[in-house]
């Protein structure tokens, strides 16, 4: 395989796994639930996106014809991630979870 294509695939793989790792780290480290919500909704989704682009390039370069099949996964995740984040935020507000003391503003009553 061409060295440039291999480099490109490696770059996207590394970027994707780093984003996924940072998202998980955010989930583990941040102090309250609403802040934890930020890590997975953004970073992890982009992590999967990076992996999928890498595999798109990889399988395209192997000469079996480009397949856009994998893009469906990313598309689906980009549609569903905000929805599940929104529902989780509503559930957390209804359960009246503890909020970090630095937070300004209040959640609404459900």
């Amino acid at each position, binding site marked *: 395989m061409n060295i440039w294509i291999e480099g490109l695939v490696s770059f996207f793989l590394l970027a994707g796994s780093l984003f996924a790792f940072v998202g998980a780290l955010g989930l583990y480290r*941040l102090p309250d639930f609403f*802040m934890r*919500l930020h890590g997975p909704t953004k970073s992890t989704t982009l992590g999967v996106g990076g992996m999928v682009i890498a595999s798109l390039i990889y399988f395209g370069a192997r000469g079996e014809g480009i397949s856009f*099949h994998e893009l469906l996964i990313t598309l689906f995740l980009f*549609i569903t991630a905000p929805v599940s*984040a*929104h529902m989780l*935020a509503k559930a957390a507000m209804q359960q009246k979870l503890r909020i970090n003391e630095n937070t*300004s*503003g209040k959640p609404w009553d459900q």
Partner: protein
Amino acid sequence: MKPRHFLPHPLLSLCLMVVWVLLANDMSLGNWVMGAILGWLIPLLTQVFWITPPRIYKPFKLCWFFLRIIGDIILANLEVAKLILGPQSKLRPAFVEIPMLLEDDLALTMLASIISLTPGTVSADLSDDRKMLLVHTLDVKDEAHLITEIKTRYEAPLLEVFTCSTT
């Protein structure tokens, strides 16, 4: 109940056809025909459940907007990564209420999703009268600045694309 149409949602039918062809991973004519049949049947059988789609006045503007959103998502991710790796005691999380001008269901859903995917914000709740959106941000320095940025950067283009309000 609405009267039944022969082809209730042309755009949805097109999307379903493309998704079917991608799913089968085979661009032969048979798959396009099968996709067309499914894309025609599924909206027809489920049309009672669908909301009436808004008219899109400026489709090219919408495409351009989506490209910009993808760029913003990548930038937002770098920013969130920086915040997560940085010191925690400096973070200033906040709940911010943003007044909404959009009225259409689909446009509101799109705006809420975009807010969730971009800079350090998650849309948490929409008020019952659909005038206020509650947003949680990870780190905010100036709330007024955040509100104007969301309104000019994301809401204004959407308003322009779906000019369905009474003007």
